[in-house]
């Protein structure tokens, strides 16, 4: 039995289904990230776990015990809010110790725990300050301190870094990972930022419109997405999609025509008889711009498009291209000769192409071909 189990949790607000049959198991000590676009139900799912809201159906259990009817404060969860939710009329010390004081913990024990948390979070010198006298990052650390002193079994973070500036965000990310390593407890972290998710997660859970799209290690989701949503959501810049049409299929391969291409392309994905319209997904990094006069490698994807603009970031250059049918494409290129705004030919090895059905499902092939 897993440490934390969410089984068939659904939640509606009025007629709007916000969470649809979520089932998930989380192991002790894992760092799990819920990621998805804004409004997809991430916060709602956290609130189900911590008990601020209750599901319409389904259960949440921790260490084998069903939590549905247990008060939020008694679940052994602690939550850090996006807004920090510090009490503005109390010093940092009083903020951190509030929960302990409400539980009438002995003063010396409170002191001990707060000091320990303050040491971990480097808050020692700030404990006497009011929230308004703290910077964003410091407020965030006080909010985390408030969670730490409760010694919870599960830490819940709801977009804790989204109010910080970019630099501080990167720094706090590292601090949170370090905190997780030190405390060795289960953490569930919510973000809409897939980069944050990729960098922090042991496992990430991609949500969209209240449904779980895929669960797995970040790189597995990157390499092997289950559907078009995950493929497009994970990775930056996002994956390119080319419209395609199946013209022939057998048990081991599929032949198709695709946007911007000249002739039929053969992909080593079998058993797709019956599919007609598909989409081919290729990551920017797997695309390459052909030099003038260079021929594409045999049996590779190849197509032509017009350069619209070029982002030169130093370590990498992104060339934005538009195909005749209007499909936008991004190519990740090295630092090469300047690229004008002419037509260019682009190629990618077929091994990196992913196929998606019209409903967004990944087409992996019936016999395990195509990854």
């Amino acid at each position, binding site marked *: 039995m897993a440490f934390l189990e969410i089984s068939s949790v659904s939640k509606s607000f009025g007629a709007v289904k916000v969470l649809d049959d979520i089932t998930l198991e989380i192991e002790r000590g894992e760092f799990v990230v819920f990621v998805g676009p804004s409004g997809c139900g991430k916060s709602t799912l956290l609130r189900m776990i911590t008990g601020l809201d209750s599901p319409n159906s389904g259960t949440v259990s921790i260490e084998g015990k069903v939590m549905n009817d247990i008060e939020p*404060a008694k679940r052994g969860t602690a939550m850090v809010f996006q807004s920090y939710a510090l009490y503005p009329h109390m010093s940092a010390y009083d903020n951190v110790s509030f929960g302990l004081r409400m539980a009438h913990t002995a003063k010396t024990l409170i002191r001990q725990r707060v000091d320990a948390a303050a040491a971990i979070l480097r808050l020692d010198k700030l404990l006497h300050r009011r929230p308004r006298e703290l910077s964003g990052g410091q407020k965030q650390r006080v909010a985390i301190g408030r969670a730490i002193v409760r010694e919870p079994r599960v830490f819940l973070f709801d977009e804790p870094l989204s109010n910080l500036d970019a630099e501080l965000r990167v720094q706090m990310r590292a601090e949170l990972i370090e905190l997780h390593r030190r405390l060795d407890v289960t953490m569930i972290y919510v973000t809409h930022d897939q980069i944050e998710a990729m960098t922090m997660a042991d496992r990430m859970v991609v949500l969209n419109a209240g449904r779980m799209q895929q669960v797995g290690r970040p790189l597995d989701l990157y390499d092997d997405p289950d559907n078009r949503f995950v493929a497009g959501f994970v990775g930056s810049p996002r994956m390119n999609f080319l419209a395609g049409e199946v013209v022939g299929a057998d048990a081991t391969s599929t032949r198709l025509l695709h946007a911007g291409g000249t002739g039929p392309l053969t992909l080593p994905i079998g058993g797709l008889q019956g599919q007609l319209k598909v989409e081919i997904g290729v990551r920017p990094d797997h695309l390459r711009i052909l030099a003038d006069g260079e021929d594409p490698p045999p049996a590779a994807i190849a197509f032509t498009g017009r350069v619209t603009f070029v982002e030169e970031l130093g370590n990498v250059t992104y060339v934005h291209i538009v195909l005749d049918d209007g499909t936008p494409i991004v190519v990740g290129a090295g630092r090469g000769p300047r690229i004008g705004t002419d037509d260019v030919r682009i190629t990618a090895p077929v091994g990196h192409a992913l196929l998606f059905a019209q409903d967004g499902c990944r087409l992996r092939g019936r016999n395990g071909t195509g990854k």
Partner: protein
Amino acid sequence: MTAKRASATSPTIWTVLKWTVAILAAVIAVFPVWWMINVVFSEPGQPVSINPRLWPTSLTAGLQTVHVIFAETAYLHAYMVSVCYSVLTIAGVLLFGSAAAFEFALFDFPGRRIIFGIVMLALMVPTAVTIIPTYLLTADLGWLNSMQGLVVPGLASAFGLFMLVQFMRAIPADMIEAARLDGASHLQIYWHVVLPLCRNAMVTLAILTFMQTWGNYMWPLLVGTSPDMYTVGQIVGMFNSPLSHQTVEVVMTANLLAAVPPLIFYLLFQRKIVEGIAMSGTKG
């Protein structure tokens, strides 16, 4: 301040006009009070009415009159009644108002909107309409001529509730939820989180309630008919009445004494009062 400095360098017609009007208004407002002081602290035998002047002439004569009023009339007792009436009303209005506002503003319960709507309707009903039923109810309870009869009907302040609800609605839901997760009980959230955050609104409400209670004439007149329960307002009314045998400086002293607590209150909380009125105005 800045206006003054600006006008020192280039006094435009407008600033001169503005200041003239402001000073005139101030004089008109202050003059009656000054006149009272003037009458009270005048040499006996040289009443201001006979010999008009704009400055007091005798401190001791005034203090003597104050002493006479406190020592020889029921004024001091009425003062105590008024203070009790005000303090208890303030305490009650704050307690009930904040507790009710806490529920209305921050929690959902069946019928919340309807009940709140009904309470808000009470804001629109003039006192003249409710005073007789309230009197009858108070009489039925046997509370005539008692402190509870004076205080209790004034405890449910629709205005106070409204003001505090507006204020508490601005408290982020996250903060209440954080407190809940911290294990704070309903009452602890009210006491440790919400009340401290509403301090300003509470102070404003206390001030407005004080001004209203201290100056309330009608209700004490109805409920406190026995001399034991006379408030300052009633006593002053008697001094002022045509059948009163007091001389003018005694009457004036009685009036001045009644005005002292609100004056002190006003000087202490000037800023808060202005804020409070602005707040109830803009948010209402």
